[in-house]
């Protein structure tokens, strides 16, 4: 006979295997968060999350709640980030988050499934290659503009111990462009070129594991780990043709191979605690270690080859002997510790309604160094404070055998101005100052079946 614990062990092993078979990658959750209540609490929910946010913060929480949860939310954040007082054109980050959390029980074996999806409303995915001489806000320019899809399972072998595992999917790209034919230098109308384009958006995955320990009715602990995400883009372009002048043809071979990391999110380990020190008050704290120091270079590796035999052409063309590509430049980033604090207060409660007020704070020290050299990855520390509320409507039977949860928040983030002073006095970009603010809001509707 197969025991529930052995079943869970197999599931855990399989999930880890699936997760580790691909490289891990970046998510909008790291920038925006997942779940309105969780964002409102500064993300300090690792110890006791039980809603759709479990798919991101701690998969163990999937099996914590009383029943099926369906959630729909909309979150948005506008950036007013500046460099030297000029707007940096950082795009609004926003999207719809859908989630399902389904705790189940077969006999004495309690387990659960979770699915979380974040769909950006601007575009499904955005990738911009790095122009190293053009400063950009690296953590906010393209990273949040990705689809987030996370699937998780969790089980509860004993009443106070919850364990969850999951994988999150992202999509790198592999693009190929092939051009062949003849290019006539002086008779454009005679030029005949054919091209073929091929693009693959493949799948890559990263794992996450978490546990929650319910020490007492008023005290929980949580640990979660997310693997690193390394989203690579590869572009290969080849030209195999002829340069034509009159009746003379000069064979031309050109190839460009660009291999870049478009997004990287480090592995993260979070410790959390949540407590109810007094009735109606919940306080939680998280501390996340982020392994930024392993960040690979965002400068693409480029190999460019040009071969052309001009000896037969009756014209003088100045072709460089060598076309230099680019080489990766070390990022020199540092690991960070991110503290998060969340406070939730039951402001009003009767048999049919519960109103909660929430406050959250996060401090994210920047992992990026002062940009003294050739790269220009702009970033600053970020202080984020969130204020919001939730309303639970629970007297809804027989229409709904459970309750309806409405949540909303407003968020303000302050990024102190940081001076980037170049080592070289004649750096092509020069010194600059970067800082700004962000404003966010979100609202959600959750149906909870008990």
């Amino acid at each position: 006979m197969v025991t529930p614990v052995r079943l869970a062990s197999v599931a855990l092993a399989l999930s880890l295997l699936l997760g580790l078979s691909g490289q891990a990658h970046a998510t909008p959750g790291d920038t925006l968060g997942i779940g309105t209540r969780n964002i409102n609490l500064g993300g300090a929910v690792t110890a006791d999350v039980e809603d759709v946010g479990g798919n991101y913060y701690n998969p163990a929480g999937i099996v914590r709640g009383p029943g099926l949860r369906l959630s729909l939310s909309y979150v948005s954040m506008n950036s007013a980030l500046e460099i030297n007082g000029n707007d940096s054109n950082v795009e609004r980050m926003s999207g719809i988050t859908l989630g399902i959390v389904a705790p189940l029980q077969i006999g004495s074996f309690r387990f659960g499934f979770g699915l979380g999806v974040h769909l950006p409303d601007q575009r499904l995915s955005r990738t911009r290659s790095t122009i190293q001489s053009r400063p950009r806000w690296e953590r906010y320019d393209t990273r949040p503009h990705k689809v987030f899809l996370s699937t998780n399972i969790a089980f509860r072998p004993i009443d106070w111990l919850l364990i969850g595992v999951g994988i999150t999917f992202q999509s790198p790209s592999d693009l190929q462009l092939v051009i062949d034919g003849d290019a006539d230098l002086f008779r454009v109308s005679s030029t005949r070129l054919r091209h073929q384009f091929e693009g693959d958006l493949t799948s890559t995955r990263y794992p996450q594991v978490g546990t929650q320990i319910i020490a007492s009715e008023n005290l929980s602990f949580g640990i979660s780990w997310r693997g690193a995400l390394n989203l690579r883009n590869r572009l290969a372009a080849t030209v195999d043709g002829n340069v034509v002048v009159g009746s003379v043809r000069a064979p031309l071979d050109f190839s460009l191979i660009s291999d870049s990391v478009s997004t990287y999110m480090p592995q993260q380990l979070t410790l959390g605690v949540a407590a109810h020190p007094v009735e109606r008050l919940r306080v939680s704290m998280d501390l996340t270690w982020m392994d930024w120091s392993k960040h690979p270079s965002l400068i693409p590796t480029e190999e460019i080859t040009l071969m052309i035999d001009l000896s037969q052409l009756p014209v003088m063309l100045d072709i460089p002997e060598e076309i230099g590509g680019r080489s990766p430049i070390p990022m020199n980033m540092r690991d960070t510790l991110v503290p998060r604090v969340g406070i939730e207060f039951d402001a009003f409660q009767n048999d049919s309604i519960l109103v909660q007020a929430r406050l959250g704070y996060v401090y994210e020290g920047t992992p990026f160094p002062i940009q003294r050299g050739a790269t220009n990855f702009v970033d600053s520390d970020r202080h984020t404070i969130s204020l919001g509320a939730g309303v639970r409507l629970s007297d809804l039977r027989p229409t709904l055998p459970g309750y309806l949860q409405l949540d909303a928040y407003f968020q303000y983030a302050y990024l102190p101005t940081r001076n980037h002073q170049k080592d070289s006095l004649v750096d092509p970009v020069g010194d600059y100052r970067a800082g700004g603010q962000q404003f966010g809001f979100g609202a959600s509707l959750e149906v909870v079946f008990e």
Partner: protein
Amino acid sequence: MTHQAFPFLRRSGRSFRLALVLTSLLVGCSALGKETPFPDPISTSGVGPFRRLGTTETRFRGLALDLGQQGLDRASWAGGSLFYAAAPVIAPLPARDTTLPARELDPGQFDPFRIFRSDTEERFGFDPGVVVLEASEAWEGGFVTQPFALELEDGSVRVYYAAAGGIGLASAPSVTGTLTRSGDGLALANDLGVMAGPLRSPAVAVLDGTYYLYADDGTDIWVATSVDGLTFTLLDADDAAGGVNPLSIPDPIDDDEPLERAHVSPAALVATSPTGRTTLRLYVECQQVPETGNEDQRIIAALASIDGVTFERARLPAQEARDAPGQPTIRRFHEGVAEQLMYVTVTRGTDPQLRALQVAVDPARANFEPAPEPMP
């Protein structure tokens, strides 16, 4: 209360909410897929490369000054005015000094140079203006040329110039005021014992309360300092070497760049970056060793220094063109947005040298196309 005060709100409440929802949907949908442009490039170091302004961006088809049949020998800004040296061609035209490089101006083909000031600027183009300084002192040798104007914080202006005996100075209480010499006006005399030739093309900047004067001798650039900007003392730019030495201009960083035989005609500017760092920038005419025949190619290089003596050279030329740009001058323009570089090029042949003043800007994206005329 609100509905009592504004009954239309009660009547149209449903319509109002419907309109609100529809507006929200429209606003939301209109933003879908909207592309956000890349942030603008940043250039706060002033090293360029500068972009020569187009014919439609300027009053005189890319030129700052159009003097016709006159010789032009360097220009400089102060406030809104342009100071320059010019002289008519001698008729009949004397034979050109064949020992001079192809793009070098031959003073023997012109009347004595004088210094002019133009106060009228329109779309980067200046009127000819008026004479503001002529040779009057014995040491000047009958001409004054290559002015460099420095506006001080109190609004007064100092014009440093080259003459036969060295570098001179004339001052005015304001940019448009009358220039007068203090004494004989000699600020730094030639020291032909150490220099290859007479001093030319002065440029002065004030760094940390000290006046730094740069001037060339036809091959190298020398530096002199002063506490008052009136009289200068030559500075040894290389303590390690014996004697008094000129500035050491770093070689081009790229190995495939031609060798340089002379660094002349400096323009100086003290600038403070957005982070508060103050540097002294030099823009220098670099005369390259001809690779073939009589080709006399020149570029303008940008350099920067913390102490005014040790300079770092930008990798790319600030200006490089087939018409061999030379005699640069610089001014802050649209603070924080663009800097403007003017330089002299040969436009109407080399015998005699009739040259023009070109205008270029950094960053190159700065656009000065006039706004289109509104449709009637």
